[in-house]
């Protein structure tokens, strides 16, 4: 299959395991649309690893979602949520403001203009709970909200609410879960 880029150069579509090609140019269209890899003979392509695969998580189907909002304060802090999600077998979601700030990709967005989710457990961290977010997650079986502001509307829908600093609360929960798991493994319960 041949495709051309916007300069009209002809390229050959790379597929893993099939073509023997030397890469001369690599095009990744982050916004969507056509993704093409261009090359001429030589090398064997073993595997194509793209950002898309990394983010190809369907939050709509997850049982446990750990979501972060503006209160996460930065992209790097989402590592805290990822740890908690890994520990619980869940996935990381985000509010619009976190997506808007570029901390999380669009496909992780929960809410009116993102995905509507119905997980067993939804953990909202640093999410105030504007109605546009609530409508995307309020049908979760259990909602756990962690927020510094006790007036935050997220507590109106939360099954369990924790008023506190998520940067202390979230790692504490993760730690506790780990400890429990280790105990389980040791005792074999």
């Amino acid at each position: 299959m041949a495709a051309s880029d916007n300069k009209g150069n002809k390229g050959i579509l790379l597929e893993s395991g099939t073509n023997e090609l030397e890469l001369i140019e690599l095009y990744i269209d982050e916004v969507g649309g056509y993704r093409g890899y261009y090359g001429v003979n030589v090398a064997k392509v073993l595997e194509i690893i793209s950002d898309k695969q990394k983010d190809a998580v369907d939050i709509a189907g997850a049982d446990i979602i750990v979501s972060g909002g503006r209160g996460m304060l930065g992209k790097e802090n989402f590592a805290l949520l990822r740890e908690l999600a890994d520990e619980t077998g869940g996935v990381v979601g985000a509010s619009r403001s976190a997506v808007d700030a570029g901390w999380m990709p669009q496909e992780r967005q929960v809410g009116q203009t993102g995905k509507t989710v119905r997980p067993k457990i939804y953990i909202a961290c640093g999410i105030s709970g504007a109605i546009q977010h609530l409508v995307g997650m309020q049908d979760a079986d259990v909602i756990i909200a962690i927020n510094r502001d006790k007036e935050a509307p997220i507590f109106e829908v939360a099954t369990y609410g924790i008023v506190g600093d998520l940067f202390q609360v979230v790692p504490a929960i993760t730690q506790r879960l780990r400890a429990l798991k280790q105990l389980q493994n040791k005792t074999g319960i």
Partner: protein
Amino acid sequence: MSHNPNIFAAMLVVALLFFIWSCARRIRLMTLGKPENRFDQLPLRIGDMLLYAFGQKKVVAKLFGLNHAILFGSFLILLLANGEFLVQGVFPHLSLALLPHAIYQGLRLAFDVVSVLTLICVVIALARRLFFKPDYLDSAYVKGRSFEGFLILAFIALLMIAYLGFGGVKIATGLEPGEGVPVSRFVAALLAGSANLTAWSNFFWWLHAVVLLAFICFLPHSKHMHILTAIPNCFFKNLNSTSAQPREDFAAGNSYGVGVVTDFTWKDLLDSFSCTECGRCQRACPAQTTGKSLNPRQVIHAIKSNLLANAALLKSGGTPAVPLIGAEAEASNTHESIWACTTCGACMEECPVLIEQMPKIIKMRRHLVEMGASFPEELLNLFENMEQRSNPWGIAPAERIKWSSLLNAKPFVAGQTEYLFYVGCTGAFDSRAKHVTVALATILDHAGISWGLLGKEEKCCGDSVRRLGNEYIFDRMATENVKLFKDKGVTKIITQCPHCFSTLKNDYQQYGLDIEVIHHSQLIEHLLGTGRLKLSSKASDLGKIIVHDSCYLGRHNDIYEAPRHVIQTATGHRPAEFVRHGKNAFCCGAGGGRMWMEEHTGERINNNRVAEALTVNPGTICVSCPYCLTMFEDGLKDKGASTVKVRDIAEVVAAGLQSA
């Protein structure tokens, strides 16, 4: 000093035939548009035409518009001089000199002075384009420094030079007296030494003749056709609400909205020929200002370009070859631009010749939604929720009354209750807006107003779906709501949302609802003004207050003072103003259904507005619309300025009430 009248007559006939053919072709194209009655209320129309076209009211609202106003006035006066020139060119013995002497002398003086004034204005206009060109003179397809613009200015300048030159020759040769025409006499003095006055005479006469005829021929083919269309365009202005779009007739076989250019009405098409690309709408547009592809000026330009590009096919009843929607081209509108409009109405407010840009965008949205189910994916949720549960979030209708659990709220009962408090979806469901609802209810109780609710029976007004082009659902919602109001015997409605307010007041008129609809800013102003509502203290913890005009309260319904009076009474101080305020206020970004969509391109509109607010270091931004409330609070968080409060005027007033 002679020219051959026959040669000139032949040239004139050719030029006039070409002019008439060009105009007729365009008028013919306009008549391909759908019918629309713009012939009602003639006295009002004539008045508006005098005010906006001849009075240049909106033109002079901007400083440089003065230059245009002088040119326009001069043009009207010189129309007489040029008319005389054409007639005299064919019939040399006919001239204005046949008029009584005093009148003729007066006219000569007027022509003389006005010609030089015009020349000065042309030089200023040239200088502006060359040296001080504002960015908004450029659009994607029309540049401020265009050949066309310079050509027209050159035509006008040459006409003036030729007129004054020919006048000078007549004086220099003694054909006419030099008294009373100072400029021509000055030119005569310059020419006096010339050996060949006859040659000068011929030169100026033919220069005038050729340029004038070229001007006439060129006019209909350029953006300067506005000289012919702007006056009727002002006459045919929209006399109805600026925010309410026309209804559709839902019947089998009908098509809805505008998919091809001739789906527009003839007035829409006249609009497109009236635009002279001044760029004022472009500068005012919040979408354009924040880097979106929408440019209201290009929307109009695309309609004209599309009509002309498809002219032959359209006239023969064929399908247009150039699409009106979907292509990134001069004669087309991209989907992205059509969905970027907040319906704030700033474009229409700005337009000096009263072009209606925004409704055309809604008509195209209608086509996309109703005929192609083509709309941004975020809207799928919204449309479903609106259709199934009559609110934007799909929340159960039973939850509409949750906010009132702490208050003594009663249902509306005809005969016993004076006002229906139409809470609206945001006021009923949004936890932040519920504070405003409670504040307003408290105010009503304090003032002893008899009010009631529809409770679970209340439905969404449908504002967003209508502005988003989902006219079919809106039609159903409006029909149901009007029936509900009538069945319940409602005669007066209070709203706290300008979108509900405008929809109930203006859009529902099309559905036969003609009752009193009041926005809470008006009601509170009235209650405070009449002393029916007394404040026990003045709100003092709000810091410096800046007031934001909601588009659907201000521009679309002309309510500017009520919120300001309320704030002044409640705090003792007149609020501070945005740079862009009143009629020039900048949208919060949520109107036109944009509340339910993401901004994927450029700066967020609310952030732009918040940044403007922050320049005056406010303690509180005061709003009177739940959408604006959300957008400002969101924007302040984005800007890291959460210490600045956002308050609805009802909250400011309620804070000054003694707790009951």
